[in-house]
């Protein structure tokens, strides 16, 4: 039987537990570490936040994840850090002290999650850059507190940020240990992970392929939405963990085409310099998509096959007029336009044995413009009522190419073919846009549900379409 091996806090773990159980259950029930709390089991409250450290050639990079929707198997080869693992023996660490100083803990139930998120922030902060009040807020964007109203937590975050200004970017871990952010065992982790990997590559374990059974295997990338709905089943049945499959990872540019592996996370997109150049507002867009831990986990492929009619990344890539590459059971590949992937509500073009490999789109010229919009009840960490994206090419004031998509307004993420066709050859002005919205209305068919009435979604889809032009062409759209 395959064993899963990793370092949990300062302790080496080798377990034969089912790879599909949640990390949260492993931490709380198998290891009896009770500081990580169970709040919602859908990644929406952050009480179960932990850190995952990945060894990148001797340097360990830490990310926050919500352990309630993450498979244990993905811990293989990593450093998993819970609140217990960042406690200093006899005193509060710097983040904890800031929380206590600012009255940022009331009932205490959400607190460990906040402390872990802020410690993740400290581990990732490059230091020596100017303080921005809200940067630490981004780090705790996945943590819900029902007691404080957040202002005290924000103050604690600010106190942490101020301290981090003194950080020396070259000796991150050493500095953090010296300044009391983390215990000193962190310095020993990189060599220990390297050693563990060496032992494994000697043939001792495979970890990620735990308990294969032909026929009923569920493909799991990083968990997230799959675990929201099927955590109980995945704890029993066979899972194939895709997290470590190298050919599903990576962002590359070649011949003017950008290709992203199906396992690319929003965080990986957000931090990619070339994508940042194409999408100057990339961070702003992806901040609307989810909280930081979910951006660290959720993959493009997962979002596409989840096939939610309001899937943010589906809507994003539809407007990029992207192409999907699908790996077939026989090892060959086929490609389809992404517009053709979603067939009907939760139905999509993926046969048994097939797997999403990558998605690609034509890179941008200076004439290409892109915008993404999303409105929900709560601006952040929420599922859209309606989301929308648009890619518009304008040459000499004339629209030469256009692609639009909208989510929450049809049984599938909707590619607005007619609306786009109408705009080709037109100039950008309020009248043209207004005429286009009439066509848009004929292409959508929203229903009333808990995220809004059909009537609202129609109005919202129209306004978000308008918002693309207002955002991208303020001069032409003067008056809005």
């Amino acid at each position: 039987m395959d064993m899963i091996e990793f370092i949990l806090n300062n302790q080496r773990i080798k377990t034969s537990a089912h790879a599909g159980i949640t990390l949260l259950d492993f931490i709380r029930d198998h290891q009896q570490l009770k500081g990580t709390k169970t709040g919602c089991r859908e990644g929406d409250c952050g009480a179960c936040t932990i850190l995952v450290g990945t060894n990148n050639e001797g340097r360990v990079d830490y990310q926050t994840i919500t352990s309630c929707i993450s498979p244990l198997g993905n811990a293989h080869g990593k450093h998993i850090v819970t609140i217990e693992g960042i406690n200093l023996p006899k005193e509060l660490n710097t983040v904890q002290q800031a929380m206590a100083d600012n009255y940022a803990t009331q009932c205490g139930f959400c607190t460990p999650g906040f402390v872990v998120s802020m410690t993740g922030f400290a581990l990732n902060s490059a230091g020596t850059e100017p303080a921005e009040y809200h940067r630490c807020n981004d780090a705790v964007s996945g943590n819900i507190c029902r007691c404080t109203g957040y202002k005290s937590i924000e103050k604690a975050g600010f106190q942490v940020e101020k301290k981090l200004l003194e950080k020396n970017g070259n000796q991150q871990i050493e500095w953090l240990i010296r300044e009391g952010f983390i215990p000193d065992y962190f310095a020993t982790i990189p060599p220990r992970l390297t050693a563990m990997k060496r032992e494994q590559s000697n043939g001792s374990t495979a970890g990620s392929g735990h308990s294969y059974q032909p026929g009923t295997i569920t493909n799991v990338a990083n968990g997230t939405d799959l675990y929201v709905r099927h955590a109980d089943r995945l704890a029993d049945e066979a899972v194939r963990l895709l997290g470590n499959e190298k050919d599903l990872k990576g962002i590359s540019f070649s011949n003017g085409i950008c290709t992203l592996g199906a396992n690319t996370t929003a965080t990986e997109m957000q931090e990619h310099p070339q994508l940042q150049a194409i999408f100057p507002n990339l961070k702003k867009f992806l901040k609307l998509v989810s909280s930081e831990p979910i951006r660290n986990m959720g993959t493009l492929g997962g979002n596409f096959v989840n096939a939610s009619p309001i899937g943010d990344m589906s809507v994003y890539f539809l407007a990029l007029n992207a192409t999907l590459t699908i790996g077939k059971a026989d090892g060959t590949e086929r490609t389809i336009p992404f517009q053709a992937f979603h067939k009907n509500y939760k139905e999509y073009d993926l046969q048994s044995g097939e797997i999403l490999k990558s998605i690609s789109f034509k890179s941008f010229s200076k004439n290409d413009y892109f915008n993404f919009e999303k409105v929900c009840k709560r601006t952040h960490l929420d599922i859209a009522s309606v989301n929308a994206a648009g890619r518009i090419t304008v040459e000499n004031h004339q629209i030469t190419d256009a692609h639009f998509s909208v989510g929450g307004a049809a049984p599938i993420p909707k590619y607005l073919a007619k609306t786009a066709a109408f705009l080709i050859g037109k100039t950008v002005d309020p009248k043209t846009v207004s005429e286009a919205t009439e066509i848009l209305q004929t292409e959508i068919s929203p229903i009333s549900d808990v995220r809004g009435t059909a009537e609202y979604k129609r109005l919202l889809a129209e306004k978000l379409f308008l918002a693309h032009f207002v955002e991208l062409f303020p001069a032409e759209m003067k008056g809005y």
Partner: protein
Amino acid sequence: MKNIDSYTHVRGESLFVNDLILRHDALFGLCFDSPVAHGKIKSVDYSKAEALEGVVKIFTHQDVLGENQIGGIIADEPLWAEDEVHFWGQPIAFIVAKSEAIAKKARALINIEIEKLPVITTAKEAKEKGSFINAPRSFNLGDAKAAFADCDYVLEGETFSNGQEHLYLETQGCYAVPLENGTIKITSSTQGPTQVQKTAARVLGIPMHKIEVDVIRLGGGFGGKEDQATPWAVMAAVAVQHLNRPVKYMLNRHDDMRMTGKRHPYTSFYKIGLNKELKIKAFTVEFLQNAGAAADLSPAIAERTLFHATNSYFVPNVSTTVYSCKTNLPPNTAFRGFGGPQGMFVIESAIAAAADQIGVNRRAIQEANLLSEHDEFSYGQIARQAEARNSWFTAKERFDLEKIEAEADSFNQKNKRFKKGVSLMPICFGISFTNTPMNHARALIHIYQDGSVGVSTGAVEMGQSVNTKMLQVAQSIFNIGYEKIKLETTNTTRVANTSPSAASSTADLNGKAVEMACNSLIGRLTTVAAKSLSCEEKDISFREDFVFVKNKKSDLSWEELVGQAMLERVALSENAHYATPVIHFDKTKEKGHPFAYHVYGTAITVVTVDCLRGIYEIDTVKIVHDFGKSMNLGIDLGQVEGALAQGIGWMTLEEIAYDENGRLLSNALSTYKVPDIFSAPKTIETIPLETEGSELAIKKSKAVGEPPLMYGIGTYFAIQQAVKAFNPNYKLKFHAPFTPEKVLMGLYETEEQNHVRQNGKTTDSNKKEIRVRK
């Protein structure tokens, strides 16, 4: 002083029920609940579930040895349904298995046949059908009917405020363990340990002394664990009684949201009359409270709605009536504010409607009617130390309201896509359980022979830092180091017959008891010290861990003194009982003096609406709040900010939705959104109003738990003002929460649409077709 639990909280070392290490033979419970909102149970087939490996026993009403009844105020709620079910999520059976996963699998194997009966989801429908919990209540002052005749402006209207999910981060849960001789110890996440004990004894058919309830702390309660922590604990206790093995039951989030009650939705019909000077001369309201399927605390909550129907205004002629309407929703329950916010929303709406009609600023009417000293409330109490005007004018002055309003006006003139709105929200909230007999508490204090101190009270720690305040009270009398004093868990064997930790009054009631017990102990120790130091008792004082004589430090330390008291066989334990003096209320006349005192304050809220997308941000909330003499400003400010955020959530994005079959649609954190760090106001500024405080408040530090929640109501009216600034055709609606949907629809409604959308199609879930796509 910081929250005394800070150290363990931030390290993840604080213990909650779910963190207890279980006995090796512990079992796990799970509720099987009704899959319809109303119906007759024809048959339930448990055979497949019972046959599942690892299932120990499935409990139903037939296993109840005492009474299958958990209703507190009215005995109208069975622990487990017998022949009928009255709400979706009503407990029918309790599966006990070797693991939670097995129990879940077993639950899926239960087959139930139910004959569906008509479902009522709204209070309006219940009223039409004459479906009530109890008789309506009415408060009257003056002669409202007659007074309308003399008014220059008279308006009528309808308002709706939706329910609210508590969303305590820690779900409901308990762990019950058999001791000897049939005694059961229940560790429960409850605000009302005595309620759990009493109800368990009743259902199990055993005396209360056989049930010990222990509460370490709660991961949030907000009223949701006042009455509704009880059934789960009782179910576990029933199982322990039969199996003689420990049983743990933690509700998962979906079960918790589906099965528990929430803040009451209210539909209200008001009539308001004003004269030319903008004085409100007459005000009547008919409140329809959506109580859900059983009484729970609804009658008490309905009562408090009447107490706060005029908020912090003096209205000479008032007539208010409340109906607790029985529907097929889970029994709605206590939630911070306890009916008060629902009452205040109506008069604030009426004022907004009147201002719109008359063509004046809303705050002009508010300001013209603020309570003054000696004004009479509709329930007969006379306002004393009334700070309504003080807090209002202090807020205007200290925060420079004129400038805030001028800036918003100028912003609105310059911007088309973004509009700002400004509102003022005064509050006046009465402190005490309105049911006078509940206003009592006890404290049991032990001074151990090494000088360390243990304090037990009936107060439950749920994040409000009541334990920190209790420690402060004891410390201020003993004058010993904080580390020498420990707050014990809340346990029914140490402090019995307690009222729940609720009504903002926990610190007052229990703090006064702590004060009394400490004073008795210090009195006895003074006698010992005087004898030991051969001086007079009046010269003795305690400071810095030592006895002082005539303000000079003696050689006698606290520890030595306690040792001497032991040798002299002086009692080092004390139990004290406190009952709030002065208060009384006659329900037959609906008049009296129910509140120890009132808490006042005023909030200024500024919002910015994005008129393209229909979303909004709260720029700032600036508050002048009457803390009295705060004994811990850091903690009290945290209460203000947290309550405000909850109030804002209730008024903006927290939207409970049931479909027409009574099924909860907003049943998870993915569909029910509470404020996150970005939806909190960008700034919150709170200035403590310097007031004398009340003798009936602990150390003159006024209760702070609930009142600031109602500042959140101001956000509704600030958003409304911004929407109106963008769209003059927008017709004011009073239908909370003001979700982005209602904002966008309001921004773009045309005059013709006004009529159609009057009652907000969006939340009238009866009429809308519901499907969920996710």
